[in-house]
């Protein structure tokens, strides 16, 4: 595992100067910093992408800088930096009637949930922070921390809109975890493991060995998973917890400045996590689509990020195209459509595997 590699490397380098406790600590901190840096840079890029993609969909140019002076740089490249700076510099307001400790805790919790999911995401054969043998299960598990923190944020704000947002998000995320999980069971059945690395290795050998092309039931499972994932990360058409035209800003109504930015950041980080799981589970992860070509470690990082990036792009695309569902429709879709489909899918895949692949 990565921590061991770094520890060995550091021991070789600095073994004589520092005790092994310090080195272990350092070798754990280094991947954390790497993830943190990755999330930050990724957030800047995806904010820029969201601005630009939405602008092109809406027939406008989006952030643009022209000529000399204070502006957002060429093609508005500095816009996300300006956004981030604005959020950092804003006054941090905690409402006097809010439940102060919980109010402060909520944004950290949601970010931790997103952050620790990154630990188990593989970017290459050996490029993974922690190669857990239950990687998939782990990601689904820690993803649920988001629910807790959203309820916490909704309750602690002591605002009726926040309360609505919190309640809606709880109902929504808990419900949609079921079809998402059931769709991933298809992957687990085919690969026979919960380890994300092994799942990806199962898909070795070019695009037609990817799980999504394994049998006719898997694409359905993929679609169900992707839509459920969309609901889990509160993106349109499932952005009910923060639907700006109904609930003002839902659970984030009372948050400002950096605390609001944490919600913002975690939403994008969660988008990456669910897309990465979809890419690893269905689209071959870091495997090249061409058997044997372009499969060096650098290429594998490229494939993983570009597959994930494509799914994130689809999420942005959907957001700026579709209206929002209503609460009861959201639940209907989940319990009456996705759940039966996901269950039938499991049977379908099982029968298919027994009949054709045995």
């Amino acid at each position, binding site marked *: 595992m990565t921590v061991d590699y770094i520890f060995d490397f550091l021991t070789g380098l600095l073994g004589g100067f520092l005790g092994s406790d310090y080195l272990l600590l350092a070798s754990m901190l280094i991947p954390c910093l790497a993830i943190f840096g990755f999330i930050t840079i990724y957030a800047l890029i995806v904010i820029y992408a969201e601005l630009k993609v*939405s602008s092109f*969909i*809406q*027939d*406008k140019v989006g952030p643009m800088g022209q000529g000399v002076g204070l502006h957002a740089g060429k093609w508005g490249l500095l816009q996300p930096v300006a956004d981030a700076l604005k959020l950092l510099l804003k006054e941090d307001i905690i409402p006097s009637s809010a439940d102060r400790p919980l109010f402060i805790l909520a944004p950290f919790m949601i970010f931790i949930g997103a952050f620790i999911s990154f630990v188990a995401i593989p970017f290459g054969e050996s490029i993974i922070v922690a190669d857990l043998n239950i990687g998939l299960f782990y990601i689904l598990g820690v993803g649920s921390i988001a629910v807790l923190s959203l309820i916490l944020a909704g309750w602690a704000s002591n605002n*009726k809109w926040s309360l*609505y947002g919190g309640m809606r998000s709880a109902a929504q995320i808990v419900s949609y975890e079921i079809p998402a999980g059931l769709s991933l069971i298809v992957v687990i059945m085919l690969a026979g493991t919960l380890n994300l690395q092994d799942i990806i290795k199962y898909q070795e050998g070019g695009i037609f060995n990817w799980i999504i092309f394994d049998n006719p039931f898997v694409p359905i499972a993929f679609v169900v998973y992707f839509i459920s994932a969309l609901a889990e990360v509160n993106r*349109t*058409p499932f*952005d*009910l917890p923060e*639907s*700006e*035209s*109904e609930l*003002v800003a839902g659970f984030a109504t009372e948050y400002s400045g950096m605390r609001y930015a944490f919600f913002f950041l975690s939403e994008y980080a969660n988008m990456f996590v669910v897309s990465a799981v979809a890419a690893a589970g269905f689209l071959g992860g870091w495997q090249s689509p061409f058997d044997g070509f372009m499969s060096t470690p650098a290429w594998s990082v490229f494939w993983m990020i570009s597959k994930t990036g494509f799914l994130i792009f689809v999420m942005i695309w959907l957001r*700026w*195209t*579709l*209206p*929002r*569902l*209503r*609460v*009861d*429709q959201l639940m209907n879709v989940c319990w009456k459509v996705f759940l039966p489909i996901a269950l039938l899918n499991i049977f379908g895949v099982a029968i298919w595997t027994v009949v054709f692949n045995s």
Partner: protein
Amino acid sequence: MGVVHGQEMVLNIGPQHPATHGVLRLQVKTDGEVISEITPYLGYLHRCFEKHCENVTYEQVIPFTDRCDYLASMTMNFGYVVAVEKLMDIKVNDRVQHIRVIMAELQRIASHLLATGVFGLDLGAFTPFLHMLRDRERIIDLFEMTCGARLLYNYMWVGGLSHDLPKGFVEATLNFLDYFEPKIDEFENLLGHNKIFVERTADIGIMPAEVAINFGVTGPNLRASGVNWDLRKDDPYSIYDKFDFNVPVGQGIKGTVGDSWDRFYVRLQEIRESVKIVRQAIDQLPKDGDVHQSMPKKIRPPKGSIYSRTESPRGDLGYYIESDGSDTPSRLKMRSPAFTALGVLDEIAGGWLMSDVLAILGSLDIVLGEIDR
């Protein structure tokens, strides 16, 4: 198992809320997501329009009418000058009439574009809104070309207009219409037939015809309930009887007659009809005629009163003017269509979910400037 009873919660939607289209406060009683009772509180935008009018001359009222329905200033002007002209018995020449109709119909297109776009926005569809604003912008450019203003025009004066049409206006308008007509289909496909949009609006907020009439709802909202009532056809003012156009009524294509989807669709169809009227008016536009010809030196209507109605994009816009023979109105009352449209909200939206209530509110197309005056 017993039935679980929740406690009702009183929630204030507004005065600052993204979905109230201005400063409106809806005090709602909610049980979870279900809203059982809606009490609108108005007056946050009250600017004493009627009181002001009693202190200024008839000409000076026109800019005030602009500011009532700031999204359809042209038709607000139009309704007022028609009322005063009826009171004074002024006949204006054909060129002025045609220009007024062109402006009013362009304004109707602009207003409906915003109404349908914002309705989409209330349901979370951001993109159609910006596409519609883009085209509304081109209409506003045409207005700017004509009178220099982009929002509050003060263009129609009693007995005439402030300016004649500028050079190139006719070509620019025809260009715009050629560009715009295919876009209407695009809007219809983009928003109107979107599955989620239909799910959110069809069968939601049904307003039966008798309720609509009893609550004094007019304009597209009334027509969506299946009542064929358009003042341009049924009580023609200006020269609307010269033009050939249809009055779209709600047919319940996606759900029931008078649901939110019908209100959206009627507006979209009205945009098509307005395009037709503008084209005809431009065809028939007389070349000569002074737009200041019949403007009286001093507007001093004879003693008497008049109630005059015109069709604004939001419905029957009535002006009740009582003149005491001086040059200021003794009493001027605006019967605003959005005022009555908001009055029906509790009746048709009570009992629906919170998301639906805001969708219904969006479908009624209210402008707070006109409600509060």
